[in-house]
């Protein structure tokens, strides 16, 4: 693997390879999170053209724990927000000598544009592009599910995961559907019809408009953030009605199987898609997703950066 742009580009071996690496890394660290010398002398640039403190901090922590040098190029005050083209930014990063660029961008396909053009030679890691994909989030979600419900290794055969909410605008949902299906899990998307894309029938998953009919059968339920502005864009009548049909509250939680996990990629709208009691309940692994995020991103950086560049043969 040269880049991490999309789950679509991955095969099962790639995916399990990253999850296994993350498993080993978490074992070594075992909560202590000591610094490893592995990427000493490598430069990782966090290019965040869209605000996301959570993801940026997670990648930054991951890179630093592997001793890479980290340069943050964040939205506010950066040249991208001043209308500098992606090309010019890429050429600057090339001049700096970035070994990897972690890019978050509001335009779908921005990471691929960066990787496909000859503007820079480093690895490109997609940290969320528009409404396209967010592969590192999907990997950390799969890692979290595998740790709790899987064999701790291998794939996710036999598990059933529901992803609930604004599928149409969710890069997390796109990446998760592809990855969970790749790993052999059954995926059901739950949303009002307005928040499901046309053409979804070709995705490797099933679709339901009825949350309550799905809930009792799943091993994990992943709640997606619903943005308030979707209301003004006519996707649903109001927050209360959305919550009534698609929010996860303690009443609904009762119909979940006892061992089922509750997940959320954050940031949460407490009271809208998820109630506070549910988010803070014992079966919620939401904060663990955050810590697993660092480990999985270490694994991604390791897989992409630790070896010799792919175009150089082994010696």
């Amino acid at each position: 693997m040269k880049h991490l742009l999309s789950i679509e580009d991955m095969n099962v071996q790639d995916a399990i390879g990253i999850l296994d690496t993350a498993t080993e890394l978490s074992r070594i660290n075992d909560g202590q999170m000591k610094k490893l010398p592995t990427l000493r002398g490598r430069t990782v640039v966090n290019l965040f053209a869209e605000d996301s403190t959570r993801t940026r901090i997670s990648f930054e922590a991951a890179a630093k724990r592997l001793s890479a040098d980290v340069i943050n190029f964040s939205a506010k005050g950066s040249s991208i927000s001043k209308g500098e083209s992606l090309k010019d930014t890429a050429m600057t990063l090339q001049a700096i000598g970035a070994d990897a660029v972690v890019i978050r961008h509001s335009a779908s396909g921005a990471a691929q544009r960066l990787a496909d053009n000859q503007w820079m030679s480093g690895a490109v890691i997609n940290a969320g592009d528009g409404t396209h994909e967010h592969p590192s989030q999907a990997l950390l979600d799969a890692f979290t599910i595998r740790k709790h419900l899987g064999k701790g290794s291998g794939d996710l055969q036999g598990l059933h995961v529901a992803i609930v909410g604004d599928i149409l605008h969710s890069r997390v949902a796109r990446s998760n559907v592809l990855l969970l299906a790749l790993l052999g899990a059954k995926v059901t998307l739950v949303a009002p019809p307005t928040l499901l894309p046309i053409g979804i029938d070709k995705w490797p998953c099933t679709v339901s408009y009825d949350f309550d009919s799905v809930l009792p059968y799943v091993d994990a339920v992943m709640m997606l953030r619903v943005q308030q502005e979707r209301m003004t864009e006519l996707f649903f009548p109001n927050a209360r009605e959305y919550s009534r049909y698609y929010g996860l509250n303690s009443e609904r939680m009762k119909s979940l199987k006892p061992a089922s996990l509750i997940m959320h990629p954050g940031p949460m709208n407490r009271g809208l898609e998820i109630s506070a009691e549910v988010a803070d309940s014992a079966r919620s692994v939401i904060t663990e997703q955050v810590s697993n995020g660092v480990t999985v991103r270490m694994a991604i950086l390791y897989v992409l950066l630790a070896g010799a560049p792919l175009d150089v043969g082994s010696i």
Partner: protein
Amino acid sequence: MNVVLSAEDISRALTRISHEILERNHGSSNLVLLGIPTRGAHLALRVAEIMANIEGTTIPCGTLDITLHRDDLRLRPPRSIMPTLIPQSGIEGKDVVLIDDVLFSGRTIRSALDALGEVGRPKTVQLAVLVDRGHRELPIKADFVGKNLPSSLDQSIRVSLTEIDGRDEVVIENRRQS
């Protein structure tokens, strides 16, 4: 190609090493064995088993992966990380014996010492290897050696173990001229 250690030779060497370790450390009570994956891990298990038979008690035995501490990562294709499994006893204040198949430049062992430092602070660290082929690049020396095999740099030493390769043997072969 030349077989330098047969299955029997390997078995004898491991038995001898096991005895030497026990003797040097006055028994097994404070010992922890850590094999360096992949083949070192299997050798460590064998040594632990031999010792258990001698001592009549189980010896804490684990693995220590050094991949994340290697100084030659950039020179080779990406490698996958192997398991690091530290026994319940931990290594704090213990006499740790690192076990590997071949001792060559010493860089692997340097990395192993770094990796060990992440895990804890043993009382002593010792090194046992099946084969020492010389050509050290660092001031590192093995405490227990199965066989010294002086070799030239254009030869390669290949260790096969039943657990991985289906049979036990060590061969020395001339590298293809490039």
